[in-house]
């Protein structure tokens, strides 16, 4: 690993950002729920796997995260639609 590489700097920055956001008190950013903790855990794991050049593993984790977020917001959208009518 060359620490000056742009990819590695971005990965370390994103991982540290996720850790710091988790450590903040809950009235600033609410991480009490299960779903938000999963987001942080998967982001840290993806940054780690990008750093050790396991790009496919990182892309897989990010895809899982994206699909889960998509399902979550689809669920929210459908619930809002059904409440309106």
């Amino acid at each position, binding site marked *: 690993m060359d620490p000056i590489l742009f990819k590695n700097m971005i990965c370390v920055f994103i991982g540290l950002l996720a850790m710091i956001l988790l450590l903040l008190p809950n009235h600033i950013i609410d991480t009490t729920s299960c779903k938000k903790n999963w987001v942080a855990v998967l982001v840290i794991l993806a940054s780690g796997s990008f750093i*050790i050049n396991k790009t496919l593993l990182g892309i897989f984790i990010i895809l899982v995260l994206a699909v889960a977020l998509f399902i979550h917001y689809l669920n929210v959208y459908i619930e809002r639609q059904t409440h309106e009518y």
Partner: protein
Amino acid sequence: MGDKLRLIFAIFWRAAIIFLPMTEVAFAALERQSPFLSNSYVRDFASMYSDVILIVGSLFLLAAGSTIGYFFPTPQYGAKPLPKPVKLLISVVGGFLAFAYYVHTEKTITPAVIWWVAAVSFVSPAIIHLVHAAAIKFTGIRFGIIQEDLDSIKKSFNDEKEGS
């Protein structure tokens, strides 16, 4: 507080014994009149023992990640939070497994392994807790168990403990 300081001191000198052979190398270098801690000596050390330095660095970050994961608040969700010593143990196990995975797949040791070990040892207790909580929730949905039932089950366990 004094007990904790004493514990930290005890752990420190036990860890220092592990690194005693390295001081022999330093004393041998002093006896040979080669300037210890000179530029050339440090460069030779860094080039010859780079893997050892990286392993020591990843051990250090393993300890740091485990400590952060230990004092980290568990998510207030679902199951009862894990006991703290178990969290520490899970962190250390996760870090070592990550290190073994990296060495097995890459066959070399590069500085990347330090951050990888730290990230996995930080994350692993949260993963175990969240998987546990999710498993409880899914089985609850499947068998029609609600939160009140779970509370009564927990209470019954506590009663058994007090009774025995």
